[in-house]
């Protein structure tokens, strides 16, 4: 069907550029002319097609950007250069060097210099050995191949015993200190409180039962206000077991040096401070210096655990 309008006229009508009378005439024609309606529809469809073509072309354009990038990258490689810019390469090289340096420093300060504190179980000398140097046990000899500790007894005969299960090696100082508290606790249970009779209701027997049952919370509560050096020692161990190292150190520290457990208490305090490293570096150093200057310590200079504790103090900042 024919009509008097050009494409440009239809476009003007669609874009609202047609004047009032012309617009009215166009709409009258539109109402009766099917082909004019189809051309108007075609004009709208043309806009959609243009949009589609534009989108496709833009996507193609952006894909071209990527291809150009890749080609430029290849050109740089062919030219003998490096695809990574020089300043980034330099930064990467510096970062790699620093990483290696840090690893080396870490190794020498933390691993190479540090004795394997955790994996060398030893027993703290019993009460009798504390006061009689002649009876003290020689330092443990570590047989690393068998992972067993070979201890020489008094007659020089070798006795073998299994080492405790290998613990995870980690820099947490309390792990090392805790390994040392075991023999102290055992010695305590054996010596301080004579056999735990179930019918014995005395405080000693009760404390021993709690100790055997690892009820450390009950022990520390029961001995909260004690001033008895023996009980302070028990309290110190219980608090240590509860990982209340600060309170444990205080409990051990409040035991006078001149009592029977004086040195053991200093040792317990040292272990608690070890567990709190590196925050307690100064306090621990002072304590260890004091122990080294102590006459009793001279008798104990071969006690390996103490040396190891001193070694630990080397990790403190200077």
């Amino acid at each position, binding site marked *: 069907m024919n009509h008097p309008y050009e494409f440009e006229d239809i476009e003007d009508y669609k874009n609202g550029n047609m004047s009032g009378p012309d617009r009215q005439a166009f709409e009258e024609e539109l109402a009766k002319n099917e082909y004019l309606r189809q051309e108007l529809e075609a004009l709208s469809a043309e806009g959609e097609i*243009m949009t589609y073509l534009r989108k496709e072309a833009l996507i193609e354009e*952006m894909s071209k950007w990527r291809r150009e990038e890749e080609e430029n990258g290849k050109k740089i490689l062919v030219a003998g250069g490096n695809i990574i810019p020089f300043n980034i390469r330099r930064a990467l090289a510096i970062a790699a060097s620093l990483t290696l340096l840090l690893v080396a420093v870490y190794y020498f300060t933390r691993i190479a210099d540090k004795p394997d504190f955790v994996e060398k179980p030893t027993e703290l000398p019993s009460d009798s050995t504390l006061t009689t140097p002649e009876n003290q046990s020689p330092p443990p000899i570590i047989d690393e191949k068998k992972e067993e500790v070979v201890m020489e007894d008094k007659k020089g005969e070798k006795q073998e015993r299994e080492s405790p299960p290998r613990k995870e090696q980690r820099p947490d100082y309390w792990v090392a200190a805790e390994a040392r508290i075991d023999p102290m606790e055992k010695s305590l249970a054996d010596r301080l409180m004579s056999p735990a009779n179930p019918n014995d209701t005395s405080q000693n027997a009760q404390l021993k039962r709690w100790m055997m049952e690892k009820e450390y919370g009950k022990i520390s509560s029961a001995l909260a206000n004690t001033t008895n050096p023996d009980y302070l020692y028990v309290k110190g161990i219980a608090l240590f077991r509860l990982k209340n190292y600060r309170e444990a150190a205080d409990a051990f520290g409040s035991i006078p040096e001149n009592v029977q457990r004086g040195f053991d208490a200093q040792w317990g305090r040292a272990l608690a401070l070890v567990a709190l490293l590196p925050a307690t570096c100064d306090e621990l150093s002072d304590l260890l210096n004091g122990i080294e200057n102590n006459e009793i310590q001279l008798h104990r200079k071969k006690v390996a655990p103490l040396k190891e504790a001193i070694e630990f103090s080397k990790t403190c900042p200077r």
Partner: protein
Amino acid sequence: MNNKDKPKKAFTDEEILDALKSYDRRRVHEALKYLWLDKELVNSVKNLLSYKGFDAETETDFWLNDALAEFDRQVKSGKYDTSQSGIKTYIVAIVWKSSASQRRTEKRRTEKNKLLTDSTNSVLRDATVDPEAEFMSQEKIEAIKKAISGLTPRCRKIITLKALHYKNEEIAEEMGYNNKDTVREAVGDCRRMLRTYLANHPALSKIINEK
């Protein structure tokens, strides 16, 4: 990439919008390239695609290019509202929406294929038509392709260049015409050819005009 193609400055959202709304294709090109090179935008799209389970390394370009082109379309049609979100957020939202839509379609297709495979019903097995929503969008694209196929390759290129806002002088240079007047005539002829084809195929126009 050539250094001359790199955007020389940082664009603000307002500048990007001004460029996209202009009919200066160089400005449009520069603004789109600025977005295309924007690390924050690219990484956001990558993270989104990874989150959606796509292979971000290989598919980021596809989704980003599509989203930028769609963003350009929405700016021109006035659909983008600056008060609702920033440009980069909006582009990531386009990727989010279209990738989610694809995931849904894939899921439906997988479930349907499973149903068809498992079914002993021959009617179900033979059914191949996808859900209507998916079909409609595909149908529109097919109609557009059909309408374009009615053009000569030369006309198609001219109309594409026009859609990209090439000036007549640029089209003349691109197409090898002597002057811009020849281009004006060629563009008019090609558009008339397309409209005539569409007017003679009203069913195609109707599908293309459907929202």
